[in-house]
Protein backbone atom coordinates (compact mmCIF):
# COMPACT_ATOMS: atom_id res chain seq x y z
CA UNK A 1 0.00 0.00 0.00
CA UNK A 2 1.70 3.19 -1.12
CA UNK A 3 1.45 6.48 0.70
CA UNK A 4 -1.26 8.19 -1.37
CA UNK A 5 -3.51 5.16 -1.33
CA UNK A 6 -3.08 5.06 2.43
CA UNK A 7 -3.80 8.80 2.64
CA UNK A 8 -7.04 8.38 0.68
CA UNK A 9 -8.17 5.63 3.04
CA UNK A 10 -7.38 7.79 6.05
CA UNK A 11 -9.35 10.69 4.56
CA UNK A 12 -12.27 8.38 3.82
CA UNK A 13 -12.15 6.99 7.34
CA UNK A 14 -12.11 10.45 8.87
CA UNK A 15 -14.94 11.63 6.63
CA UNK A 16 -17.12 8.60 7.44
CA UNK A 17 -16.26 8.90 11.12
CA UNK A 18 -17.18 12.58 11.27
CA UNK A 19 -20.47 11.91 9.53
CA UNK A 20 -21.22 9.17 12.05
CA UNK A 21 -20.37 11.64 14.77
CA UNK A 22 -23.11 14.01 13.60
CA UNK A 23 -25.70 11.24 13.89
CA UNK A 24 -24.33 9.69 17.08
CA UNK A 25 -23.90 13.00 18.90
CA UNK A 26 -27.64 13.66 18.62
CA UNK A 27 -28.38 10.13 19.79
CA UNK A 28 -26.07 10.37 22.77
CA UNK A 29 -27.31 13.86 23.74
CA UNK A 30 -30.92 12.73 23.64
CA UNK A 31 -30.09 9.77 25.80
CA UNK A 32 -27.66 11.48 28.14
CA UNK A 33 -29.89 14.44 28.86
CA UNK A 34 -33.41 13.19 28.38
CA UNK A 35 -32.93 9.50 29.16
CA UNK A 36 -34.62 8.47 25.91
CA UNK A 37 -33.49 5.65 23.64
CA UNK A 38 -34.49 6.76 20.19
CA UNK A 39 -34.66 4.05 17.51
CA UNK A 40 -36.19 6.54 15.08
CA UNK A 41 -32.95 8.50 14.98
CA UNK A 42 -31.89 6.76 11.78
CA UNK A 43 -35.20 7.78 10.20
CA UNK A 44 -34.26 11.42 10.70
CA UNK A 45 -31.04 10.77 8.80
CA UNK A 46 -33.02 9.13 6.00
CA UNK A 47 -35.59 11.96 5.97
CA UNK A 48 -32.76 14.51 5.80
CA UNK A 49 -31.31 12.83 2.73
CA UNK A 50 -34.69 12.63 0.97
CA UNK A 51 -35.41 16.25 1.87
CA UNK A 52 -32.07 17.32 0.38
CA UNK A 53 -32.83 15.38 -2.80
CA UNK A 54 -36.37 16.66 -3.32
CA UNK A 55 -35.74 20.24 -2.20
CA UNK A 56 -32.66 20.44 -4.40
CA UNK A 57 -34.93 19.69 -7.34
CA UNK A 58 -37.36 22.46 -6.39
CA UNK A 59 -34.80 25.10 -5.53
CA UNK A 60 -32.09 24.03 -7.95
CA UNK A 61 -29.42 24.35 -5.31
CA UNK A 62 -28.20 21.89 -2.72
CA UNK A 63 -27.18 24.69 -0.36
CA UNK A 64 -30.67 26.18 -0.38
CA UNK A 65 -32.12 22.69 0.02
CA UNK A 66 -29.95 22.06 3.08
CA UNK A 67 -30.88 25.41 4.63
CA UNK A 68 -34.59 24.71 4.12
CA UNK A 69 -34.17 21.10 5.21
CA UNK A 70 -32.53 22.06 8.49
CA UNK A 71 -35.44 24.37 9.30
CA UNK A 72 -37.90 21.58 8.51
CA UNK A 73 -36.07 18.98 10.61
CA UNK A 74 -35.93 21.37 13.56
CA UNK A 75 -39.67 21.89 13.23
CA UNK A 76 -40.19 18.12 13.06
CA UNK A 77 -38.07 17.66 16.18
CA UNK A 78 -40.04 20.25 18.13
CA UNK A 79 -43.36 18.77 17.04
CA UNK A 80 -42.34 15.18 17.93
CA UNK A 81 -41.05 16.20 21.33
CA UNK A 82 -44.18 18.17 22.15
CA UNK A 83 -46.65 15.56 20.99
CA UNK A 84 -45.00 12.19 21.71
CA UNK A 85 -41.65 12.06 23.46
CA UNK A 86 -42.78 14.31 26.31
CA UNK A 87 -44.89 11.42 27.62
CA UNK A 88 -41.98 9.00 27.71
CA UNK A 89 -39.54 10.65 30.11
CA UNK A 90 -40.80 8.86 33.20
CA UNK A 91 -41.42 5.57 31.44
CA UNK A 92 -39.37 2.41 31.15
CA UNK A 93 -36.95 2.14 28.19
CA UNK A 94 -39.14 -0.63 26.85
CA UNK A 95 -41.90 1.81 25.92
CA UNK A 96 -39.41 4.16 24.37
CA UNK A 97 -38.20 1.28 22.21
CA UNK A 98 -41.76 0.44 21.29
CA UNK A 99 -42.86 3.97 20.44
CA UNK A 100 -39.77 4.80 18.43
CA UNK A 101 -40.03 1.46 16.62
CA UNK A 102 -43.58 2.42 15.66
CA UNK A 103 -42.27 5.76 14.42
CA UNK A 104 -39.79 3.98 12.14
CA UNK A 105 -42.67 2.17 10.44
CA UNK A 106 -44.58 5.44 10.12
CA UNK A 107 -41.64 7.37 8.66
CA UNK A 108 -40.72 4.53 6.29
CA UNK A 109 -44.23 4.31 4.95
CA UNK A 110 -44.60 8.08 4.66
CA UNK A 111 -41.31 8.21 2.78
CA UNK A 112 -42.55 5.51 0.45
CA UNK A 113 -45.84 7.37 -0.13
CA UNK A 114 -44.25 10.78 -0.69
CA UNK A 115 -41.00 9.95 -2.47
CA UNK A 116 -41.33 6.30 -3.53
CA UNK A 117 -38.85 3.46 -2.99
CA UNK A 118 -36.26 4.31 -5.63
CA UNK A 119 -32.61 5.11 -5.22
CA UNK A 120 -31.69 8.66 -6.21
CA UNK A 121 -28.43 10.41 -6.85
CA UNK A 122 -27.84 13.96 -5.70
CA UNK A 123 -25.46 16.21 -7.61
CA UNK A 124 -22.58 17.84 -5.78
CA UNK A 125 -22.84 21.68 -5.96
CA UNK A 126 -20.93 22.89 -9.02
CA UNK A 127 -18.63 25.04 -6.91
CA UNK A 128 -17.37 21.98 -5.00
CA UNK A 129 -17.51 19.45 -7.82
CA UNK A 130 -13.82 19.04 -8.51
CA UNK A 131 -11.07 16.74 -7.35
CA UNK A 132 -7.68 17.44 -5.90
CA UNK A 133 -5.02 15.50 -7.83
CA UNK A 134 -2.67 13.55 -5.60
CA UNK A 135 -0.60 11.60 -8.12
CA UNK A 136 -0.91 10.98 -11.85
CA UNK A 137 -3.93 8.74 -11.51
CA UNK A 138 -5.13 9.26 -7.94
CA UNK A 139 -7.24 12.21 -6.88
CA UNK A 140 -9.57 13.05 -4.04
CA UNK A 141 -13.00 14.68 -4.46
CA UNK A 142 -13.09 18.11 -2.87
CA UNK A 143 -16.70 17.69 -1.69
CA UNK A 144 -15.62 14.99 0.77
CA UNK A 145 -13.00 17.28 2.23
CA UNK A 146 -15.55 20.08 2.49
CA UNK A 147 -17.91 17.63 4.25
CA UNK A 148 -15.27 16.76 6.82
CA UNK A 149 -14.58 20.45 7.37
CA UNK A 150 -18.26 21.21 7.91
CA UNK A 151 -18.52 18.30 10.38
CA UNK A 152 -15.50 19.60 12.28
CA UNK A 153 -17.03 23.09 12.44
CA UNK A 154 -20.21 21.58 13.85
CA UNK A 155 -18.27 19.56 16.42
CA UNK A 156 -16.55 22.80 17.47
CA UNK A 157 -19.86 24.65 17.63
CA UNK A 158 -21.32 21.87 19.79
CA UNK A 159 -18.36 22.17 22.12
CA UNK A 160 -18.87 25.94 22.39
CA UNK A 161 -22.58 25.49 22.92
CA UNK A 162 -22.26 22.92 25.68
CA UNK A 163 -19.23 24.35 27.47
CA UNK A 164 -19.51 28.09 27.06
CA UNK A 165 -23.11 29.21 26.77
CA UNK A 166 -25.90 29.64 29.25
CA UNK A 167 -28.02 27.11 27.38
CA UNK A 168 -25.14 24.64 27.52
CA UNK A 169 -24.95 25.13 31.25
CA UNK A 170 -28.65 24.34 31.56
CA UNK A 171 -28.20 21.26 29.37
CA UNK A 172 -25.35 19.96 31.51
CA UNK A 173 -27.21 20.75 34.70
CA UNK A 174 -30.38 19.11 33.41
CA UNK A 175 -28.42 15.95 32.61
CA UNK A 176 -27.15 15.58 36.15
CA UNK A 177 -30.18 16.63 38.19
CA UNK A 178 -33.49 17.43 36.62
CA UNK A 179 -35.38 18.29 39.84
CA UNK A 180 -32.71 20.63 41.14
CA UNK A 181 -32.60 22.52 37.86
CA UNK A 182 -36.37 22.93 37.96
CA UNK A 183 -36.22 24.11 41.55
CA UNK A 184 -33.77 26.81 40.48
CA UNK A 185 -36.43 28.19 38.16
CA UNK A 186 -35.13 26.90 34.85
CA UNK A 187 -37.70 25.70 32.35
CA UNK A 188 -36.35 22.17 31.89
CA UNK A 189 -39.11 21.24 29.46
CA UNK A 190 -37.91 23.95 27.12
CA UNK A 191 -34.34 22.67 27.47
CA UNK A 192 -35.53 19.18 26.55
CA UNK A 193 -37.38 20.48 23.52
CA UNK A 194 -34.25 22.32 22.37
CA UNK A 195 -32.03 19.27 22.88
CA UNK A 196 -34.40 16.97 21.03
CA UNK A 197 -34.79 19.38 18.11
CA UNK A 198 -31.00 19.77 18.02
CA UNK A 199 -30.54 16.00 17.90
CA UNK A 200 -33.09 15.59 15.10
CA UNK A 201 -31.53 18.44 13.15
CA UNK A 202 -28.02 16.95 13.53
CA UNK A 203 -29.19 13.58 12.19
CA UNK A 204 -31.14 15.22 9.37
CA UNK A 205 -28.21 17.46 8.48
CA UNK A 206 -25.89 14.44 8.37
CA UNK A 207 -28.29 12.81 5.90
CA UNK A 208 -28.34 15.95 3.75
CA UNK A 209 -24.53 16.18 3.68
CA UNK A 210 -24.22 12.49 2.85
CA UNK A 211 -26.81 12.54 0.08
CA UNK A 212 -24.39 13.40 -2.76
CA UNK A 213 -21.79 10.88 -1.57
CA UNK A 214 -23.87 7.85 -0.59
CA UNK A 215 -26.92 8.60 -2.80
CA UNK A 216 -30.40 8.43 -1.35
CA UNK A 217 -32.04 5.06 -0.66
CA UNK A 218 -34.81 3.68 1.58
CA UNK A 219 -32.77 1.55 3.99
CA UNK A 220 -30.14 4.21 4.74
CA UNK A 221 -31.73 5.06 8.09
CA UNK A 222 -31.53 1.58 9.57
CA UNK A 223 -27.90 1.14 8.55
CA UNK A 224 -26.72 4.36 10.10
CA UNK A 225 -28.82 3.82 13.23
CA UNK A 226 -27.15 0.58 14.18
CA UNK A 227 -23.63 1.83 13.49
CA UNK A 228 -24.48 4.92 15.57
CA UNK A 229 -25.56 2.65 18.42
CA UNK A 230 -22.16 0.96 18.22
CA UNK A 231 -20.50 4.39 18.30
CA UNK A 232 -22.54 5.49 21.31
CA UNK A 233 -21.87 2.24 23.18
CA UNK A 234 -18.12 2.49 22.54
CA UNK A 235 -17.97 6.16 23.37
CA UNK A 236 -20.04 5.94 26.51
CA UNK A 237 -23.67 7.01 26.55
CA UNK A 238 -24.15 10.73 27.08
CA UNK A 239 -20.58 11.67 26.22
CA UNK A 240 -20.30 13.86 23.12
CA UNK A 241 -16.49 13.59 23.09
CA UNK A 242 -16.73 9.86 23.53
CA UNK A 243 -18.99 9.85 20.49
CA UNK A 244 -16.41 11.82 18.49
CA UNK A 245 -13.54 9.51 19.43
CA UNK A 246 -15.61 6.37 18.88
CA UNK A 247 -16.98 7.64 15.57
CA UNK A 248 -13.46 8.23 14.25
CA UNK A 249 -12.38 4.81 15.55
CA UNK A 250 -15.31 3.12 13.81
CA UNK A 251 -14.82 5.17 10.66
CA UNK A 252 -11.21 4.02 10.45
CA UNK A 253 -11.96 0.40 11.41
CA UNK A 254 -14.69 0.18 8.77
CA UNK A 255 -12.69 1.86 6.00
CA UNK A 256 -9.52 -0.14 6.55
CA UNK A 257 -11.53 -3.30 7.18
CA UNK A 258 -13.10 -2.96 3.73
CA UNK A 259 -9.67 -2.54 2.12
CA UNK A 260 -7.67 -5.13 4.04
CA UNK A 261 -10.16 -7.90 4.90
CA UNK A 262 -13.20 -7.35 2.64
CA UNK A 263 -14.80 -10.73 3.49
CA UNK A 264 -15.42 -9.91 7.13
CA UNK A 265 -15.54 -6.13 6.89
CA UNK A 266 -19.18 -5.86 7.99
CA UNK A 267 -18.45 -7.71 11.21
CA UNK A 268 -15.37 -5.68 12.14
CA UNK A 269 -17.14 -2.78 13.80
CA UNK A 270 -19.05 -5.24 15.98
CA UNK A 271 -15.85 -7.03 16.94
CA UNK A 272 -14.38 -3.66 17.95
CA UNK A 273 -17.49 -3.11 20.05
CA UNK A 274 -17.17 -6.55 21.67
CA UNK A 275 -13.53 -5.83 22.53
CA UNK A 276 -14.44 -2.49 24.10
CA UNK A 277 -17.25 -4.12 26.07
CA UNK A 278 -14.86 -6.72 27.45
CA UNK A 279 -12.43 -4.04 28.47
CA UNK A 280 -14.77 -1.25 29.63
CA UNK A 281 -18.45 -2.27 29.70
CA UNK A 282 -19.61 1.33 30.12
CA UNK A 283 -17.74 2.73 27.14
CA UNK A 284 -14.45 4.53 26.78
CA UNK A 285 -15.57 7.93 28.03
CA UNK A 286 -18.19 7.21 30.61
CA UNK A 287 -19.36 10.43 32.17
Amino acid sequence: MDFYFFLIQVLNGVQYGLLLFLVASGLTLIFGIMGIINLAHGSFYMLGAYLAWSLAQYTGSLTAAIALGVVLTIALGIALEQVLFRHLYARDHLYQVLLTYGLILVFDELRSMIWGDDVHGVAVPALLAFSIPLTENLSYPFYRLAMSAVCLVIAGALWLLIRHTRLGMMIRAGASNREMVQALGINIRLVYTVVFALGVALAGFAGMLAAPVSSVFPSMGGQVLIISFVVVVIGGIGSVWGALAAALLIGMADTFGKVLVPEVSAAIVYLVMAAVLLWRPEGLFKR
Partner: protein
Amino acid sequence: MNRRRSDIALAAALLALALFPLAGSTFYLQLVTKIMAMAIFAMSLDLLVGYTGLVSLGHAAFFGIAGYTLALLSPQYEAANLWTTLPAAMAACAMFALVTGALVLRTSGIYFIMVTLAFAQMAYFVFHDTALGGGSDGIYIYVKPEMKLAGRTLLDLGDLGQFYDLVLILMTAVYLFLRRLLGSPFGRALAGIRANEQRMRSLGFPTFRYKLAAYVIAGALAGISGYLAALQFGFVNPEILSWHNSGIVLMMVILGGMGTLHGAIIGAFALVLLQEVLANQAWFGEAAKHWQLAMGVLIVLVALFLPRGLAGLGARPRKGSADGR
Protein backbone atom coordinates in the same frame (compact mmCIF):
# COMPACT_ATOMS: atom_id res chain seq x y z
CA MET B 1 -58.21 -13.51 36.55
CA ASN B 2 -57.37 -16.18 39.09
CA ARG B 3 -55.22 -19.10 38.19
CA ARG B 4 -58.00 -21.68 37.96
CA ARG B 5 -60.13 -19.61 35.67
CA SER B 6 -57.21 -18.75 33.43
CA ASP B 7 -56.28 -22.45 33.24
CA ILE B 8 -59.78 -23.30 32.05
CA ALA B 9 -59.67 -20.49 29.50
CA LEU B 10 -56.30 -21.71 28.30
CA ALA B 11 -57.39 -25.32 28.01
CA ALA B 12 -60.42 -24.18 26.03
CA ALA B 13 -58.22 -22.12 23.72
CA LEU B 14 -55.88 -25.05 23.12
CA LEU B 15 -58.84 -27.34 22.42
CA ALA B 16 -60.17 -24.81 19.93
CA LEU B 17 -56.75 -24.69 18.24
CA ALA B 18 -56.63 -28.50 18.15
CA LEU B 19 -60.04 -28.66 16.49
CA PHE B 20 -59.36 -25.77 14.13
CA PRO B 21 -58.01 -27.92 11.23
CA LEU B 22 -61.48 -29.51 10.95
CA ALA B 23 -62.94 -26.15 9.98
CA GLY B 24 -60.15 -23.99 8.58
CA SER B 25 -59.17 -23.75 4.94
CA THR B 26 -55.57 -24.27 3.80
CA PHE B 27 -54.91 -20.54 3.91
CA TYR B 28 -56.00 -20.16 7.51
CA LEU B 29 -54.26 -23.37 8.53
CA GLN B 30 -51.02 -21.94 7.12
CA LEU B 31 -51.65 -18.67 8.89
CA VAL B 32 -52.37 -20.20 12.30
CA THR B 33 -49.33 -22.49 11.98
CA LYS B 34 -47.18 -19.45 11.32
CA ILE B 35 -48.73 -17.62 14.28
CA MET B 36 -48.17 -20.53 16.67
CA ALA B 37 -44.49 -20.67 15.67
CA MET B 38 -44.31 -16.93 16.34
CA ALA B 39 -46.01 -17.50 19.70
CA ILE B 40 -43.11 -19.78 20.71
CA PHE B 41 -40.75 -16.99 19.63
CA ALA B 42 -42.68 -14.43 21.70
CA MET B 43 -42.82 -16.67 24.78
CA SER B 44 -39.06 -17.19 24.66
CA LEU B 45 -38.55 -13.43 24.55
CA ASP B 46 -41.04 -12.94 27.36
CA LEU B 47 -38.74 -15.03 29.57
CA LEU B 48 -36.14 -12.27 29.12
CA VAL B 49 -38.25 -9.13 28.86
CA GLY B 50 -41.16 -9.91 31.11
CA TYR B 51 -39.64 -12.17 33.72
CA THR B 52 -35.96 -11.27 33.95
CA GLY B 53 -36.20 -7.60 33.02
CA LEU B 54 -33.78 -7.86 30.08
CA VAL B 55 -35.08 -5.90 27.09
CA SER B 56 -33.44 -7.62 24.13
CA LEU B 57 -33.69 -6.12 20.67
CA GLY B 58 -31.70 -8.89 19.04
CA HIS B 59 -33.90 -11.91 19.48
CA ALA B 60 -34.25 -12.47 15.74
CA ALA B 61 -30.64 -13.69 15.69
CA PHE B 62 -31.72 -16.96 17.36
CA PHE B 63 -34.71 -17.31 15.06
CA GLY B 64 -32.43 -16.96 12.06
CA ILE B 65 -29.58 -19.12 13.31
CA ALA B 66 -31.97 -22.02 13.95
CA GLY B 67 -33.48 -21.65 10.48
CA TYR B 68 -30.04 -21.61 8.87
CA THR B 69 -28.98 -24.64 10.94
CA LEU B 70 -31.86 -26.63 9.47
CA ALA B 71 -31.11 -25.38 5.97
CA LEU B 72 -27.40 -26.17 6.22
CA LEU B 73 -27.96 -29.62 7.74
CA SER B 74 -30.57 -30.63 5.17
CA PRO B 75 -29.16 -32.79 2.38
CA GLN B 76 -30.14 -31.32 -0.96
CA TYR B 77 -32.43 -34.08 -2.27
CA GLU B 78 -33.13 -36.11 0.84
CA ALA B 79 -35.07 -35.53 4.01
CA ALA B 80 -33.22 -34.43 7.11
CA ASN B 81 -33.96 -36.09 10.42
CA LEU B 82 -36.02 -34.00 12.83
CA TRP B 83 -34.63 -35.81 15.86
CA THR B 84 -31.13 -34.59 15.08
CA THR B 85 -31.70 -31.28 13.29
CA LEU B 86 -34.07 -29.73 15.84
CA PRO B 87 -31.72 -30.33 18.79
CA ALA B 88 -28.81 -29.18 16.60
CA ALA B 89 -30.64 -25.94 15.80
CA MET B 90 -31.39 -25.38 19.46
CA ALA B 91 -27.80 -26.14 20.40
CA ALA B 92 -26.49 -23.67 17.82
CA CYS B 93 -28.74 -21.00 19.29
CA ALA B 94 -27.69 -21.89 22.82
CA MET B 95 -24.03 -21.59 21.83
CA PHE B 96 -24.59 -18.18 20.23
CA ALA B 97 -26.54 -17.12 23.33
CA LEU B 98 -23.77 -18.32 25.62
CA VAL B 99 -21.02 -16.43 23.79
CA THR B 100 -22.91 -13.20 23.11
CA GLY B 101 -24.74 -13.42 26.43
CA ALA B 102 -21.47 -13.41 28.34
CA LEU B 103 -20.73 -10.10 26.61
CA VAL B 104 -24.12 -8.39 26.52
CA LEU B 105 -24.91 -9.24 30.13
CA ARG B 106 -21.92 -7.19 31.22
CA THR B 107 -24.12 -4.24 30.30
CA SER B 108 -27.57 -3.29 31.48
CA GLY B 109 -30.47 -1.00 30.68
CA ILE B 110 -30.11 1.02 27.53
CA TYR B 111 -26.67 -0.45 26.74
CA PHE B 112 -28.21 -3.89 26.81
CA ILE B 113 -30.81 -2.88 24.23
CA MET B 114 -28.22 -1.42 21.90
CA VAL B 115 -25.69 -4.22 22.29
CA THR B 116 -28.18 -7.05 21.72
CA LEU B 117 -29.26 -5.22 18.58
CA ALA B 118 -25.67 -4.82 17.44
CA PHE B 119 -24.81 -8.51 17.90
CA ALA B 120 -27.91 -9.60 16.05
CA GLN B 121 -26.90 -7.26 13.26
CA MET B 122 -23.46 -8.87 13.23
CA ALA B 123 -25.10 -12.27 12.76
CA TYR B 124 -27.20 -10.75 9.98
CA PHE B 125 -24.10 -9.53 8.16
CA VAL B 126 -22.34 -12.87 8.57
CA PHE B 127 -25.17 -14.57 6.68
CA HIS B 128 -25.66 -11.65 4.29
CA ASP B 129 -22.05 -11.09 3.24
CA THR B 130 -20.40 -14.50 3.36
CA ALA B 131 -21.01 -17.55 1.22
CA LEU B 132 -21.78 -19.64 4.31
CA GLY B 133 -25.55 -19.36 3.95
CA GLY B 134 -25.93 -18.54 0.27
CA GLY B 135 -25.46 -14.78 0.77
CA SER B 136 -28.42 -12.46 0.45
CA ASP B 137 -30.38 -15.02 -1.62
CA GLY B 138 -30.52 -17.52 1.21
CA ILE B 139 -31.03 -21.27 0.88
CA TYR B 140 -34.00 -23.38 -0.13
CA ILE B 141 -34.99 -26.46 1.84
CA TYR B 142 -36.37 -28.71 -0.88
CA VAL B 143 -37.34 -31.69 1.23
CA LYS B 144 -39.10 -31.41 4.59
CA PRO B 145 -37.40 -33.22 7.49
CA GLU B 146 -38.67 -36.62 8.56
CA MET B 147 -40.04 -37.46 11.97
CA LYS B 148 -39.64 -41.21 12.36
CA LEU B 149 -39.67 -43.53 15.32
CA ALA B 150 -38.46 -47.11 14.91
CA GLY B 151 -38.82 -46.85 11.13
CA ARG B 152 -42.41 -45.56 11.27
CA THR B 153 -43.30 -42.00 10.34
CA LEU B 154 -44.88 -40.33 13.36
CA LEU B 155 -45.94 -37.16 11.61
CA ASP B 156 -45.63 -36.40 7.91
CA LEU B 157 -44.34 -32.83 8.00
CA GLY B 158 -45.06 -32.28 4.32
CA ASP B 159 -48.74 -32.58 5.18
CA LEU B 160 -50.02 -29.24 6.42
CA GLY B 161 -52.46 -30.71 8.94
CA GLN B 162 -49.83 -32.93 10.54
CA PHE B 163 -47.29 -30.11 10.59
CA TYR B 164 -49.93 -27.97 12.28
CA ASP B 165 -50.24 -30.63 14.97
CA LEU B 166 -46.49 -30.64 15.54
CA VAL B 167 -46.38 -26.85 15.95
CA LEU B 168 -49.35 -26.92 18.30
CA ILE B 169 -47.74 -29.65 20.40
CA LEU B 170 -44.46 -27.77 20.56
CA MET B 171 -46.16 -24.50 21.46
CA THR B 172 -48.02 -26.22 24.30
CA ALA B 173 -44.83 -27.95 25.43
CA VAL B 174 -42.89 -24.68 25.49
CA TYR B 175 -45.70 -23.02 27.41
CA LEU B 176 -45.81 -25.78 30.02
CA PHE B 177 -42.02 -25.92 30.25
CA LEU B 178 -41.72 -22.18 30.82
CA ARG B 179 -44.55 -22.19 33.34
CA ARG B 180 -42.86 -24.95 35.26
CA LEU B 181 -39.50 -23.20 35.00
CA LEU B 182 -40.87 -19.88 36.21
CA GLY B 183 -42.56 -21.50 39.17
CA SER B 184 -39.33 -23.24 40.19
CA PRO B 185 -36.74 -21.70 42.54
CA PHE B 186 -34.78 -20.72 39.43
CA GLY B 187 -37.76 -18.77 38.11
CA ARG B 188 -38.30 -17.10 41.46
CA ALA B 189 -34.66 -16.03 41.44
CA LEU B 190 -35.15 -14.47 37.99
CA ALA B 191 -38.18 -12.57 39.27
CA GLY B 192 -36.06 -11.38 42.16
CA ILE B 193 -33.35 -10.19 39.79
CA ARG B 194 -35.93 -8.28 37.80
CA ALA B 195 -37.26 -6.57 40.92
CA ASN B 196 -33.93 -5.80 42.55
CA GLU B 197 -30.73 -7.30 41.27
CA GLN B 198 -28.51 -5.76 43.95
CA ARG B 199 -30.54 -7.27 46.72
CA MET B 200 -30.43 -10.68 45.07
CA ARG B 201 -26.67 -10.39 44.78
CA SER B 202 -26.35 -9.44 48.42
CA LEU B 203 -28.49 -12.47 49.28
CA GLY B 204 -25.78 -14.56 47.70
CA PHE B 205 -27.30 -15.33 44.31
CA PRO B 206 -24.78 -15.34 41.46
CA THR B 207 -27.08 -13.09 39.40
CA PHE B 208 -24.86 -13.02 36.32
CA ARG B 209 -25.04 -16.80 35.99
CA TYR B 210 -28.79 -16.78 36.49
CA LYS B 211 -29.24 -14.17 33.79
CA LEU B 212 -26.90 -16.01 31.45
CA ALA B 213 -28.84 -19.24 32.02
CA ALA B 214 -32.10 -17.43 31.23
CA TYR B 215 -30.51 -15.92 28.11
CA VAL B 216 -29.33 -19.33 26.88
CA ILE B 217 -32.71 -20.98 27.55
CA ALA B 218 -34.53 -18.13 25.78
CA GLY B 219 -32.16 -18.46 22.83
CA ALA B 220 -32.65 -22.22 22.55
CA LEU B 221 -36.45 -21.91 22.74
CA ALA B 222 -36.43 -19.14 20.13
CA GLY B 223 -34.53 -21.67 18.04
CA ILE B 224 -37.57 -23.96 18.00
CA SER B 225 -39.66 -21.23 16.42
CA GLY B 226 -37.00 -20.36 13.85
CA TYR B 227 -36.66 -24.04 12.96
CA LEU B 228 -40.42 -24.41 12.50
CA ALA B 229 -40.68 -21.25 10.40
CA ALA B 230 -37.84 -22.37 8.11
CA LEU B 231 -39.49 -25.79 7.81
CA GLN B 232 -42.88 -24.29 6.99
CA PHE B 233 -41.73 -21.85 4.32
CA GLY B 234 -38.99 -24.04 2.89
CA PHE B 235 -36.33 -21.34 2.65
CA VAL B 236 -34.19 -19.07 4.76
CA ASN B 237 -32.63 -15.72 3.89
CA PRO B 238 -30.82 -13.08 5.97
CA GLU B 239 -34.00 -11.03 6.41
CA ILE B 240 -35.24 -13.46 9.08
CA LEU B 241 -32.40 -12.16 11.27
CA SER B 242 -33.15 -8.52 10.58
CA TRP B 243 -33.87 -6.21 13.46
CA HIS B 244 -37.40 -5.64 12.17
CA ASN B 245 -38.09 -9.22 13.17
CA SER B 246 -36.69 -8.50 16.63
CA GLY B 247 -38.91 -5.42 16.85
CA ILE B 248 -42.02 -7.33 15.80
CA VAL B 249 -41.55 -10.06 18.40
CA LEU B 250 -40.94 -7.47 21.11
CA MET B 251 -44.14 -5.81 19.98
CA MET B 252 -45.98 -9.13 20.36
CA VAL B 253 -44.73 -9.54 23.92
CA ILE B 254 -45.74 -6.04 24.94
CA LEU B 255 -49.03 -6.05 23.05
CA GLY B 256 -50.04 -9.29 24.72
CA GLY B 257 -48.88 -8.11 28.12
CA MET B 258 -45.37 -8.98 29.20
CA GLY B 259 -44.70 -11.19 32.14
CA THR B 260 -47.70 -13.35 31.34
CA LEU B 261 -46.87 -16.33 29.15
CA HIS B 262 -50.34 -16.57 27.66
CA GLY B 263 -50.00 -12.87 26.88
CA ALA B 264 -47.17 -13.68 24.48
CA ILE B 265 -49.46 -16.12 22.65
CA ILE B 266 -52.27 -13.58 22.56
CA GLY B 267 -49.83 -10.96 21.32
CA ALA B 268 -48.62 -13.20 18.49
CA PHE B 269 -52.18 -13.87 17.35
CA ALA B 270 -53.22 -10.24 17.72
CA LEU B 271 -50.28 -8.80 15.83
CA VAL B 272 -50.22 -11.21 12.89
CA LEU B 273 -54.01 -11.11 12.49
CA LEU B 274 -53.93 -7.32 12.71
CA GLN B 275 -51.32 -7.25 9.98
CA GLU B 276 -53.50 -9.54 7.83
CA VAL B 277 -56.52 -7.31 8.39
CA LEU B 278 -54.70 -4.05 7.69
CA ALA B 279 -53.13 -5.44 4.53
CA ASN B 280 -56.46 -6.82 3.28
CA GLN B 281 -57.10 -5.24 -0.10
CA ALA B 282 -60.72 -6.37 -0.17
CA TRP B 283 -61.49 -4.31 2.93
CA PHE B 284 -59.24 -1.32 2.63
CA GLY B 285 -58.60 -1.19 -1.13
CA GLU B 286 -55.63 0.97 -2.07
CA ALA B 287 -55.01 1.99 1.55
CA ALA B 288 -54.11 -1.64 2.36
CA LYS B 289 -50.79 -1.08 0.58
CA HIS B 290 -49.86 1.32 3.33
CA TRP B 291 -50.70 -1.03 6.20
CA GLN B 292 -47.31 -0.30 7.74
CA LEU B 293 -48.44 3.25 8.44
CA ALA B 294 -51.51 2.07 10.36
CA MET B 295 -49.40 -0.52 12.14
CA GLY B 296 -46.84 2.08 13.16
CA VAL B 297 -49.52 4.42 14.48
CA LEU B 298 -51.08 1.55 16.44
CA ILE B 299 -47.72 0.65 17.97
CA VAL B 300 -47.23 4.27 19.02
CA LEU B 301 -50.69 4.30 20.58
CA VAL B 302 -50.06 1.03 22.46
CA ALA B 303 -46.81 2.46 23.82
CA LEU B 304 -48.62 5.58 25.01
CA PHE B 305 -51.90 4.20 26.31
CA LEU B 306 -51.68 0.44 26.87
CA PRO B 307 -48.55 -0.20 28.93
CA ARG B 308 -49.75 -3.58 30.18
CA GLY B 309 -50.93 -4.89 26.85
CA LEU B 310 -54.07 -6.79 25.94
CA ALA B 311 -53.70 -9.25 28.83
CA GLY B 312 -53.82 -6.24 31.17
CA LEU B 313 -57.16 -5.05 29.79
CA GLY B 314 -59.29 -7.52 31.71
CA ALA B 315 -57.18 -7.72 34.84
CA ARG B 316 -57.45 -5.31 37.73
CA PRO B 317 -54.48 -3.00 38.17
CA ARG B 318 -51.82 -4.48 40.40
CA LYS B 319 -49.89 -2.57 42.97
CA GLY B 320 -46.82 -0.77 41.73
CA SER B 321 -46.18 0.92 38.43
CA ALA B 322 -47.14 -0.53 35.11
CA ASP B 323 -43.49 -0.58 34.14
CA GLY B 324 -42.73 -3.17 36.74
CA ARG B 325 -39.99 -1.03 38.26
